[in-house]
């Protein structure tokens, strides 16, 4: 099915959308940037042959709209072409990049990375309180909304009730793939994936990361001399031992504050001070010596 340049008319609601370009494709469908003919505004339209996944995602978007950090859902409809029915949802178009693209172009410091993870974690926490897990958490599913200065989590197709099986996952963030647990949905499934997400943000090398073992990762963090407490917390997160998801986020928040504190009189600043004092000292003694030499010469 080629949609580029076409106009998609909804079977039930009759709204018309002009397809501008492809935004992305996943296991279940494709997402296009579209122009709503009536209002002349841009939206993202996700279309698929899978009635199950589209209906479910629309349901999740509506059900969890109040928890924030997710895109607005506009409508759900069908599209018929050559006697075949496709199912689609229209959601708010987010002007910006996903986190994976964003970190390649922008150099974020550790404090900023931790901050982003806290925002995502807060949203997932609320899901947990309602008896669901997010499931398919990854950098590609986090959008940096430049226009509104917000972070939004897209693709809610992986949300499942606690106790059922995980339906959608990405190997890098999937604890079963790492031999760190099952694909039965519990809040610790999300704990593993959010920990791995922060590790990925720190390492910035996905292909290398996917070939490492959990032990390699911990060693890698230690070698990188990342904040010691954060390294310890990430280890506990990946191992999911004696740590709940909400506790992980709480600890991150505490650290977020100290990260700022350390920045003010951080290691680097102190080194600078030492170096500057040293140079200033030698300059002064050089000048004194120069004066003494000149005096003797006279």
């Amino acid at each position, binding site marked *: 099915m080629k949609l580029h340049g076409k106009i998609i008319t909804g079977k039930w609601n009759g709204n018309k959308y002009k397809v501008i370009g492809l935004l992305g494709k996943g*296991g279940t469908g494709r997402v296009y940037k579209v122009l709503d003919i009536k209002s002349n505004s841009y939206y993202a339209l996700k279309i698929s042959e899978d*009635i199950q996944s589209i*209906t479910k995602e629309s349901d999740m978007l509506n059900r969890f709209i109040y928890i924030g950090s997710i895109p607005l859902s506009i409508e759900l*409809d*069908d599209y018929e072409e050559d006697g075949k029915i496709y199912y689609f949802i229209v959601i708010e178009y987010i002007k910006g990049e996903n986190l994976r693209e964003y970190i390649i172009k922008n150099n974020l410091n550790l404090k900023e990375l931790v901050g982003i993870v806290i925002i995502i974690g807060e949203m997932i926490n609320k899901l947990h309180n309602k008896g669901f897990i997010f499931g398919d958490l990854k950098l590609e599913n986090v959008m940096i909304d430049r226009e509104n200065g917000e972070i939004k989590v897209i693709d809610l197709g992986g949300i499942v009730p606690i106790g059922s099986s995980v*339906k959608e996952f990405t190997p890098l963030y999937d604890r*079963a793939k790492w031999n760190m647990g*099952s694909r039965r949905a519990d809040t610790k499934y999300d704990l593993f994936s959010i920990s791995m997400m922060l590790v990925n943000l720190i390492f910035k090398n996905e292909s290398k990361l996917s070939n490492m073992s959990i032990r390699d990762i911990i060693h890698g963090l230690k070698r990188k001399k990342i904040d010691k407490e954060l390294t310890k917390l990430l280890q506990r997160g990946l191992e999911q031992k004696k740590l709940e998801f909400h506790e992980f986020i709480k600890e991150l928040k505490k650290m977020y504050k100290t990260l700022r504190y350390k920045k003010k009189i951080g290691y680097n600043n102190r080194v600078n001070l030492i170096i500057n004092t040293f140079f200033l000292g030698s300059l002064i003694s050089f000048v004194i010596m120069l004066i003494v030499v000149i005096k003797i010469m006279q």
Partner: protein
Amino acid sequence: MEQMKVNQIIVVTDGRSNVGGNPIIAAKEAVGNNIIVSAIGIVEKLEEDEGPIEEVQNIAASGGGEWELTYIENLSTTLHMLTQRTVNKTINTVVNKQLKELIGAELDEIRPKRRNKFVEYIENVSDEIHIKCCILLDCSGSMKSKISKARESIIDLMNSLKGRKGKSEVAVIAFPGPKTEMTNIVNDFTDDIEYIKDEICNIRTNGTTPTAPAIYKAIELFSGRASKSNDIIEEEPLLEDSIV
């Protein structure tokens, strides 16, 4: 709904069958035995070399299943997705039939906004339904470099299935088998992941691609009785490594 069961054969191959009959006819026979046949084609580059792709599509079409092309690295995700889709499709068909009887309309014909309850129901059933899945693994010479990833992927499918509440059983048939056999039952239906891990290590790659005999063998495993396969195997399989 509790007695509902999904019987699925998944053919995993990187080439075209070249010995032992027509897999498309074999897939039709499977359907007659209440078994869905899906197929996965392992490719080096997507959308190249149309021969095996066409066969993968045709097997799935006559077997009432799904098909997909994938790189060996993504086989595990593909196996998971394909199984998920087959299961949903099976339940969809039953739910649609019931809806037609009750309200005279299928899921498609209900307003999109009113579908969510049915979709939620289907998802719950898919988590509880009994799944029997027989994987037919191409072990011809050309699979040599891919076999360890293929093993991992089968274990991983078991991981996915085990996450569910319902019963899951997986059988593995290698084709061709060792020596001159067309097929080899690596393990019969079991839910014991450790047992599969042990058995799967013994898989070796060598020889031709007898896809049809593997499908007949799978039908035997499902039904517990011999099928047509015995009449068809007359040709000498393998021997030459170059035939793939």
